[in-house]
């Protein structure tokens, strides 16, 4: 049948490219798993990673995590942003951007909802932390660390609030509405007296603890402890997101991203899961915002502009939309490049623009392309059936059960009283 190539309902360049790849490589059965992905080098890495046993994965992961923790202390030459920008603070900003990208990746990468106003949730998180800790605010004060869960809750709530009316829209329309929403939050911060506009909130709280010299451990200028805190949170979020990705929810998101109508007709409550993606993404964004607010110690309406919002999207796309490790890489890079190359920081948008164009041409899936390992229940179930059938064939010495056709119709394998059992 492969010679009758009907029109393909595909709109992505990658699938087209992949399909030509397949044809030219003369597809053989079973070799397909690696073939359809265009980025072979990285693809081979991720394949090898996936085939590794769990313990071996840990052996690789632990050194990476240790290196990540040591990063601000080691201050590696060439890589460092000094002189010019404090290296531990640069690490902290990279970690924040990585966290943001992981959160936005849930919305854009998994569920396929283009959210151009993600900065709004970041802002909500920042303001939550600031208004609950800064002496400039009239609200009740709580310890800084408690503002983190509050920031998550508030931004998730805002996410649901925004999601309920807007997630009935699709594609471009959703992008426009979210873009507007990003601006609304910034403008609200300007006009609502309690949010104090440009003067903003000084002395936003920080985690407790004072060093030997009487200076707080989590001082604004002390990047290392902030970086460690953000890194720990990032790792926790990664675990949660990873589990989510492999669950029913993750499958539902990917189905929605691929084809929303088809997902709905498969029994996926698409609207509910889109709101979930929005809310969870918002929660992570709010958390990142609260961390940022605490570290900088100052929150006002100037930081939450559309440009930063687009930068967040760029981080996700750059890293590889739908791949959480890619998102971390993309987020860190987007934060790192202007800090490292201060001389060209002014041209950062020019550079990002060019980089994105090149990435779209040569790595249309991002630096680390997404590859979903879904919870393929069917695989396991089918393997069981196959084993059962072959066992039966061997026992009965009955080779006349071709491919299990007759086998699956046998009474013990067909508990349902419907018509199927009588057919095959």
């Amino acid at each position, binding site marked *: 049948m492969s010679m*009758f190539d009907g029109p393909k309902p595909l709109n992505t360049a990658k699938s087209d490219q992949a399909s030509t790849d397949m044809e030219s490589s003369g597809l053989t059965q079973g070799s397909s798993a690696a073939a359809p992905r265009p980025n072979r080098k990285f693809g081979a890495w991720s394949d090898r990673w996936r085939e590794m046993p769990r313990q071996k994965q840990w052996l690789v992961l632990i050194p990476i995590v240790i290196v990540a923790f040591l990063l601000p202390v080691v201050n590696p030459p060439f890589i460092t942003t000094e002189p010019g920008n404090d290296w531990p603070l640069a690490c902290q900003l990279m970690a924040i951007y990585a966290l943001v990208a992981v959160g936005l990746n849930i919305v854009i990468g998994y569920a396929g909802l283009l959210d151009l106003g993600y900065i709004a949730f970041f802002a909500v998180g920042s303001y939550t932390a600031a208004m609950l800790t800064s002496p400039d605010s009239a609200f009740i004060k709580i310890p800084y660390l408690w503002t983190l869960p509050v920031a998550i809750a508030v931004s998730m709530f805002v996410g649901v609030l925004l999601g309920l009316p807007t997630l009935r829209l699709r594609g471009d329309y959703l992008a426009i509405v979210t873009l507007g929403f990003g601006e609304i939050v910034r403008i609200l911060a300007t006009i609502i007296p309690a949010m104090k506009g440009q003067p903003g909130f000084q002395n936003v709280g920080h985690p407790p603890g004072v060093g030997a010299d009487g200076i707080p451990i989590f001082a604004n200028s002390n990047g290392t402890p902030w970086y460690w805190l953000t890194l720990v949170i990032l790792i926790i979020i990664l675990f949660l997101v990873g589990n989510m990705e492999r669950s029913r929810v993750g499958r539902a998101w*990917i189905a929605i991203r691929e084809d929303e*109508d088809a997902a709905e007709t*498969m029994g996926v409550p698409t609207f509910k899961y889109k709101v979930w993606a929005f809310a969870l993404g918002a929660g992570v964004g709010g958390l990142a915002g609260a961390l940022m607010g605490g570290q900088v110690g100052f929150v006002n309406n100037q930081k939450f502009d559309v440009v930063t919002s687009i930068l967040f999207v760029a981080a996700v796309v750059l890293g590889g939309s739908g791949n959480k490790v890619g998102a971390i890489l993309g987020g860190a890079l987007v934060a790192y490049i202007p800090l490292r190359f201060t001389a060209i920081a002014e041209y950062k948008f020019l550079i990002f623009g060019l980089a994105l164009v090149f990435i779209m041409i040569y790595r249309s899936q991002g630096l680390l392309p*997404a590859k979903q390992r879904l919870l*393929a229940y069917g695989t396991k179930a089918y393997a069981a059936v196959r084993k059962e059938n072959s066992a039966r064939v061997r026992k009965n010495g009955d080779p006349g059960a071709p491919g299990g056709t007759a086998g699956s119709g046998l009474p013990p394998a067909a508990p349902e009283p419907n018509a*199927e059992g009588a057919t*095959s």
Partner: protein
Amino acid sequence: MSLLELEDVSVHYGRIQAIHNMSFTVEEGEIVSLIGANGAGKTTTMKTISGLLNPSTGTIKFMGEDITKMKAHIRVVQGISQAPEGRGIFPAMTVLENLDMGTYGRKDRSGVGEDLERVFTLFPRLKEREKQFGGTMSGGEQQMLAIGRALMSRPKLLLLDEPSMGLAPQFIRQIFKIITEINGQGTTVLLVEQNANQALARANRGFVLETGEITHSGTGKELLANPAIKEAYLGVG
């Protein structure tokens, strides 16, 4: 009691009315074909039955129960499964993952392996390609996958929207043979087609749709013999 019953159903896109007071029934065990030209409202009818579109007036009953207001994803659980027009498979999922998505609404996971076996028996090609990404397969294979995936929810009523679209003649015959086979296994099939010849030959009953209204109805053979239909849809003067 009919398996599916449409009563005075009208569907609008904004102000444009796509379906005018349509009524028909599908009995259990039948193959029913809806044929019509482009823009006659075939796909709209399918989407209304599967729940992707809401009728502005009229009622839809499934197994005697009013499902007019029921969401699409709940109708799947009730036993209505659709292989959408243009196939609508998930290109970045493998064949097996696509089929697995078909079981999403199912409560009884125990029968999944068996249904997978059944789909692979109907479409051996899918088994050969179980690890291949859906988007990299040929049109015919994607069509098989769409039908197979729809079967994975073990539907009582299978909706097929233009299963022959864009396929080579030889393969169209094969697809229709398989549809008959699926029907023989106890699944009621409602299909929408432009390929009137095959669709009517295989169907117990058929309806002809013109600009949102049913203009002819009868058994498949009656419709095939009807000179007006012959002229309009079968290209025979």
